[in-house]
């Protein structure tokens, strides 16, 4: 702390006036350097989720009410073939920059990671070929298709009612 105070004393006063003083202790990089802490590596499949989905869906698969929650729900879609197709054909999945193989791996990862309990028993992981074929078909209206798929899941007895897979957690939307 003494050396820090000394360093501050030599900073030109003009610089002091412009910038509020921040203790070097508050900069995590200093802690990392001095204490030798390190971060565990993010697996490539997790990195694909982080870069392409996490910003809105959250690092644990849930976020704000405007963004559909993955955690504890997404797996239900795998119970019907329409639902399985829908997960790949949602616009930002379909249009993702990820190649088919990585997209398939990422979907399998997020489904087991965030919604393993809701998966269809004996869930067969997506393959690159399946993802490729599904990506070739675009959904015209994502809201209408989602409603169809969710109604199908209700009829099949997978979920009790459409509210269980509402797009938004905000009541009364979509």
């Amino acid at each position, binding site marked *: 702390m003494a050396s820090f105070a000394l360093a501050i004393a030599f900073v030109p006063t003009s610089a002091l006036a412009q910038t*509020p003083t*921040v203790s070097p202790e508050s*900069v*995590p*990089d200093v802690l990392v350097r001095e204490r030798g802490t390190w*971060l565990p*590596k*993010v697996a490539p499949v997790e990195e694909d989720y982080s870069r392409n989905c*996490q910003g809105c869906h959250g690092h644990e698969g849930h976020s*704000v009410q405007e963004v559909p929650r993955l955690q504890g729900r997404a797996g239900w879609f795998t119970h019907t073939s329409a639902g399985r197709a829908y997960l790949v054909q949602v616009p930002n999945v379909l249009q993702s920059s990820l190649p088919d193989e990585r997209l398939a791996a990422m979907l399998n990862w997020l489904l087991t990671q965030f919604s393993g309990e809701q998966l269809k028993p004996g869930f067969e992981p997506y393959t690159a070929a399946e993802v490729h074929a599904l990506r070739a078909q675009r959904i015209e209206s994502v809201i209408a298709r989602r409603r169809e798929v969710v109604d199908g899941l209700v009829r099949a007895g997978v979920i009790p009612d459409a509210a269980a897979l509402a797009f938004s957690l905000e009541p009364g939307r979509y």
Partner: protein
Amino acid sequence: MAKGLQFMDRFFERMSRRTAQQVSRRHFVSGLGAAMVGATFLPVLPVSRKAQAAEDPAAAWAKQVEAQTKDPRACNYWRYCSSDGYLCSCCGGGPATCPPGSVPSPTSWVGSCLNPDDGKTYLIAYRDCCGKDSCPKCACLGSAGEKPAYIPQLNNDIIWCFGASSMIYHCSSAAIVGQI
């Protein structure tokens, strides 16, 4: 031909013996020889060349601005390779903390920057602090790995206050997500 080879053989033998006798083991020449032999094998070693790859925009940025890890109030602080806005570090917050009176947005976009200290690449969440008038200090314009606005999830020109209680932008923070 054979004579020429014998001559060369003798020449190099004499030279290396003389070097071995006259030059101490810690001499510069012996070090240089080892370094030269080592240098031939160095490019073959299976090290990750991700950071050196010309197409990696994060590495290119780090090189161009001479990225550092000590001053989070400067635009060339390593985590700001894709930060477009006012630095929260200059507004009373930190590189990953919001200044008092503003709240972190629940949504962010995720990019990656190269840490010059350890040469590793880290995922960075660019999270705006919202709910307070904009803090016009330390405007930085990093754009490594950023995509055009029609790919909004990877764009940094838009205000990332989506989902926050207020859409008013205050400043930009850069939190580490993990090492890749």
